[in-house]
């Protein structure tokens, strides 16, 4: 039964991917892209990688979809039409198609020849979970064994935000009045009902990361989702200027993470080594500060502004 489900899933994914690159209407391409994200989440779940499934659904399908739809809304009718009908020259399309097919085939051959490698770093990580201060292997890798990667990724998030804001500054697009005013009574009610629940889920996901699938990135993305709801419902507005508190929250995760690493060098002898008795509280503090910074960064990517302000309604 599950085998049949898997086969259907794989074929649907391939079919949707084909649709996504061939469809001429940009809006449809975006919708198909979001569906692909959701199905990829399912595929990861079937591969018993719940952390990836959560991340793919929250970030790949959810937030990325929101960002794409926001961009689509910023285009006027002519641009929408033009970018759907702008086609790469035929040789380039053939090159891309043949290249992708060849690469996929080569990967298939290479991956099937691998033996899953017993005794590799993954097995070592599972055997060292006690020393890592968490029973969740993904969190142990992200926040302890390879916490350096995670910390540097926070820099990536910050730089991507700076880049997006600089890029955005060059655009002349201003949200039209009908885009930001809410003309149905349903939206405020739904926001009032959903936003607290989504917030709670985000906070839970971050905490859950210490012992089961979840963590700062998935939780942060969910928190950002709650923020997007509030923006859409008119409870929050993007503003062009930035407040010190906003910038401080954006870097909170990076600073807490780096400070924990640097301050403990004299005690532990290595950067980012934590004393065994305090690993759990240290990790929890780091997770929550990371999640806050990630959530705010993603939300500002959505509004495309330097700051946020509470709405009147």
């Amino acid at each position, binding site marked *: 039964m599950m085998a049949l489900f898997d086969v259907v899933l794989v074929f649907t994914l391939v079919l949707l991917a084909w649709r996504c690159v061939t469809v001429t209407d940009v809006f449809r391409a975006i919708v198909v892209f979001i569906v692909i994200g959701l199905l990829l989440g399912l595929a990861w779940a079937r591969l018993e990688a719940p952390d990836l499934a959560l991340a793919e659904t929250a970030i790949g399908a959810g937030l990325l979809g929101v960002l794409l739809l926001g961009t689509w809304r910023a285009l006027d009718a002519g641009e929408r039409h033009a970018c759907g009908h702008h086609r790469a020259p035929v040789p380039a399309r053939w090159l891309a198609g043949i290249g992708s097919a060849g690469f996929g085939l080569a990967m298939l051959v290479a991956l099937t020849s691998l033996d899953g490698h017993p005794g590799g770093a993954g097995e070592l990580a599972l055997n060292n979970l006690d020393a890592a201060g968490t029973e969740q292997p993904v969190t142990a890798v992200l926040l*302890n064994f390879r916490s*350096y990667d995670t910390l540097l990724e926070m*820099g990536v998030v910050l*730089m991507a935000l700076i*880049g997006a804001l600089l890029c955005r500054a060059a655009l002349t697009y201003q949200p039209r009045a009908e885009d930001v005013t809410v003309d149905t009574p349903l939206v405020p009610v739904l926001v009032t009902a959903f936003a607290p629940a989504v917030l709670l889920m985000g906070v839970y996901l971050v905490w859950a990361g210490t012992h089961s699938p979840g963590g700062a990135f998935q939780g942060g993305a969910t928190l950002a989702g709650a923020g997007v709801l509030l923006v859409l419902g008119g409870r929050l507005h993007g503003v062009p200027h930035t407040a010190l508190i906003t910038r401080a929250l954006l870097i909170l995760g990076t600073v807490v993470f780096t400070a924990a690493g640097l301050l403990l060098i004299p005690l532990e002898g*290595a950067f980012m080594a934590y004393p065994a008795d305090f690993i759990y509280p240290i990790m929890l503090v780091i997770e929550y500060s990371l999640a806050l910074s990630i959530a705010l960064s993603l939300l500002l990517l959505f509004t495309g502004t330097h700051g946020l302000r509470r709405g009147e309604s």
Partner: protein
Amino acid sequence: MTEALPALLVFIPFLAGVLQFVTDRRGIPLLPVVTTVITAALTGWLIADVAAHGPVEHFLGGWEPPLGIRLHADGLAVVMLLLTAITGTMVSVYALASHGRHVPGASHFWALWLLLWGSLNALFLSGDLFNIYVTLEMVSLAAIPLVLLAGAGKTTDATLRYLLYALFGSLVYLAGVALVYGIAGTLDLSLAADPLADSGFAGALAASCLVLGIMIKAAIVPFHVWLPAAHGGAPAAASALLSALVVKAAVYLLLRLWTDPLAGLASAPAGQFLGAVGAAAIVYGSVRAFLQERLKLVIAYSTIAQLGYMLLFFPMAVTLAWEGAVYHGLAHGIAKAALFLAAGNVIAYVGHDRLRELSGLDRPLAISLFAFALAGVSIMGLPPSGGFIAKWLLLRAAAETGQWWWLVVLTVGGLLSAAYMFRVLRFAFLRSAGATVDHQGPRPGPLRVWPTMALALLAIALGVTAAPILALLGGMP
């Protein structure tokens, strides 16, 4: 304390960049100045330590590989750190004038540049394939927004093209990393070498992905199409960083991977192929540089050509070629930064960089143009300069390995670079009929002129400091 130096070299500029983002304009110029001084001093300390006691290692979090990530400061890494510190310090001084507190976008410039400095240090010190992916992403994402600082909307197209190429390169590299982990069960550069050596098709595919991804990031022909508009359009201080350091970091990675994890897979035909790509880059980049009508585009195309020389290491793969390629990276980085800063001074004074309208510049901008000519000497590979030493080492390597065809490439490349350099100088000097040029801006101040001159003098000085630097680098691993 020295064991902590690699981590500090990453996190002091990294944290300073983050703080610069928070403090906005108020942090300028104190935060950048303090960070530059501390980072340069710590780099000097680490270099002195490596020169005296050999490589320094740091296991992050106290976890040894394959479980954790290893920072590794060996000869190659510290030579690249040296290049970053020298160029970075001089560009920082220059940017105090060009991106002072009241210049629009100054806060973003400094935040991105300090983050870029930390990212570059992280890349050079990393001993882990996946961590290198993260640092490559950081370097790209710090570098790309720098191009946008040219002004609202001017470079958006160039930046987006750069972004798309960089992301595509990252994805291809990441596919290679995933395959390496599948083959070797480890991401550590040295530990992965043995399992990769006899891994058949999967290993070959992994190596191809890693090399291809890096080549896209390094703007090696035919993946160079994003570079000229991005490097030519960015503000001068940013162009200097992008051309001297960012693309160089990708080529460094090629040298690192080839001689460590991929050493068992590196075959002679693959080496000859990379050498041929390098030769194509040298000829193509030089010819295009000669045909440009704008000063900064000449310099940008020259970068495409000069990166090709570093690829000549792969077909020869002897110690002389190793020294030549790395020394070329160092000499080119410093000379190229000087060229871009000099071009920045021209643009600040004249308001444009159209070559045919630059005659008469030699009088008001004497020092900047002199610096341009001196740096040009190194780019052409004339003695006594860093570029000459590098090309001399490569020539000797070609003779030693009996691969005479690289002698031809090196000679032709040198002549072509002389052609495009002298063409620029001819427009500025020889056709000079007096101070005919219209200028829009004030004459560049000492903070803009002297870092340019200092870099140019250093590019020449590298012609006599080869012995200690090559001793620091050590032989081919």
